[in-house]
């Protein structure tokens, strides 16, 4: 009898460790690194939250250059990590290759579509969040002129710009939106000096609220706006605290929610591959309101935004998706 109980205990123990070993999630961050105060950090926050809630350890990797993408993904897959989540559109080619090699491993990619049976593609409706901050910008602007500074000139960033423009124009039809892109190479994400100059050039033309979607470059945009006593708008993570009182709000892109959900789905056996689009309705994008910007947001603005939000969720307002037409009608 004693031996039997011991046997059962050992078996349970074995099976639980086996279970734990089986479930080993992993994240591969993009070039910005996991503490970029923005996009990648949001993914890290999601993974950490999952760890805190479930006690399951995850593995992660910060790539240092483009050639490491494939290595990192393959290494995780080979060592049995499952699911493996790639953060950022630049991982697409590498992921496509590796996902074919490991058809039994679950993969996910943020901001890009990879059409394979074992890949979950997570997209965000950045245009919806940008519409909301565009509305706020138009209401906060005194000159009726607002700016947008993008990072690399790619369709994804045009999507931010277009939603923002629509939000501004539908709030104030006479408004003027200045739009600039920092560059056409990866360096456009890490050039705060140029970001600052672009912001200054927009402010010289009269802009008094400037939204950035430019990663590290955007820190220069927010700095220039704060230096000039104007308002900036942050992106991806909550950047209100960078210059309290000088950042109108931040367009939140809940990569953290996407990562956490993917981990949970995989653990609970609810995993599904395919196409996921997270918008306002799904809580995938949002705007930030906290103690650093509450003085800037009037009740009127809050109401307008709540209304716009409800209209977008119900489908009454349709925010244009740049990706669909490769063109911005505003």
């Amino acid at each position, binding site marked *: 009898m004693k031996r039997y109980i011991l046997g059962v205990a050992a078996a349970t123990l074995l099976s639980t460790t086996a279970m734990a070993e089986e479930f080993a999630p992993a994240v591969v961050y993009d070039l910005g690194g996991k503490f970029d105060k923005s996009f990648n950090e949001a993914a890290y926050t999601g993974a950490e939250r999952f760890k805190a809630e479930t006690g399951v350890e995850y593995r992660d990797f910060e790539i240092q250059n483009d050639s490491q993408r494939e290595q990192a993904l393959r290494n995780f897959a080979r060592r049995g990590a499952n699911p493996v989540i790639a953060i950022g559109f630049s991982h697409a080619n590498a992921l496509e290759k590796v996902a074919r090699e490991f058809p039994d491993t679950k993969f996910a990619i943020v901001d890009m579509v990879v059409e394979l049976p074992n890949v979950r593609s997570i997209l965000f409706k950045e245009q919806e969040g940008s519409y909301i901050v565009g509305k706020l910008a138009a209401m906060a602007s005194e000159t009726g002129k607002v700016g947008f500074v993008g990072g690399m000139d790619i369709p994804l960033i045009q999507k931010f710009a277009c939603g923002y423009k629509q939000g501004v124009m539908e709030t104030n039809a006479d408004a003027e939106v200045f739009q600039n892109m920092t560059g*056409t190479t990866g360096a456009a994400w*890490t050039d705060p000096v140029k970001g600052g100059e672009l912001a200054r*050039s927009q402010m010289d033309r009269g802009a008094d609220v400037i939204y950035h979607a430019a990663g590290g470059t955007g820190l220069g945009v927010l700095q220039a706006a704060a230096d000039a006593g104007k308002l900036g708008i942050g992106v991806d993570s909550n950047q209100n605290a960078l210059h309290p009182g000088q950042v109108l709000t931040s367009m939140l892109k809940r990569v953290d929610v996407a990562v956490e959900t993917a981990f949970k789905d995989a653990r609970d056996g609810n995993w599904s591959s395919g196409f996921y689009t997270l918008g306002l309705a799904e809580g995938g994008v949002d705007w930030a309101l906290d103690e650093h910007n509450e003085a800037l947001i009037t009740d009127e603005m809050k109401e307008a935004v709540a209304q716009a939000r409800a209209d977008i969720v119900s489908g009454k307002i349709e925010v244009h998706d740049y990706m669909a037409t490769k063109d911005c009608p505003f």
Partner: protein
Amino acid sequence: MLDTIILILDSTVRLSTPLLLAALAGLYSERSGVFDIGLEGKMLGAAFAAGAAAAVTGSAWIGLGAGILVSIALALVHGFACITHRGNQIVSGVAINFLAIGLTALLGQDWFRQGGRTPPVTGDARFGSIVLPFADSLRDVPVVGGIYAELLSGHNILVYIAFLAVPFTWWVLFRTRFGLRLRAVGENPAAVDTAGISVTWLRYRAVICTGILCGIAGTYLSVAQSAGFIKDMTAGKGFIALAALIFAKWKPVPVMFACLLFGFLDAAAIRLQGQQVPGIGEVPVQAIQALPYILTVVLLAGFIGRAVPPKAGGTAYVKERS
């Protein structure tokens, strides 16, 4: 219209300052016969040190000191490799660039845990703008007032240092004994040696000057123009400075004009982006961004003529064959 021009020129001054400091830095080293393609690395190292020191101590001046020290240290490594050990100057310069890129990111991540960035600096930890006397009262005077208030006033101290360094460098090179010897050692080190002057010590002093100026350039990037260090924030400025140096045939005043030209093209590109140009319409971002490089090639090929480097540049001095 005049306002726009003044604003573009104002932005030109801000953008050409780091180029000017780096190019003058290269001038000292290359005039003494030590080629230095490690300007980029020294600037990056200095930018990181300045950003880190300013963030920790809260003083921009301590940041400047740290930036200069790190830059001098890197310059001495270059000197040690190619003056003392007669190593290949190009290889050593490339090594310094790689060292700076890797080390700044690694230390930044280890110390501050913000993805290789330093914490943002504010207030006294940054070089603020200096308003020249009477700038506000003269602002309304037509033409001159605008130029004085917008263009000349309101920059930070490092900008003024950079532009004062031009006549100073000219004076040092062409009116002092040190300058004469420095130029001689770049053209004909054997003659300098025969005169009983140490080639090694002269060249070391030249690379230290390079270190100081590169240190100021890097500090300008991280605690004056921006607020904090960001990975790879020099973004090729060291190489553009090198191009300006060659462009200007290793002479201080032409170096200033070359740097202003590059700065102007950059500033104009930023202003023109997304605006309607009469007769053409909106110019694509790509075309605007290629403009500075296209103009450089055209100017270099068509107008400047042959740029002859210092004769002894790139070769280590060997006192005697043994």
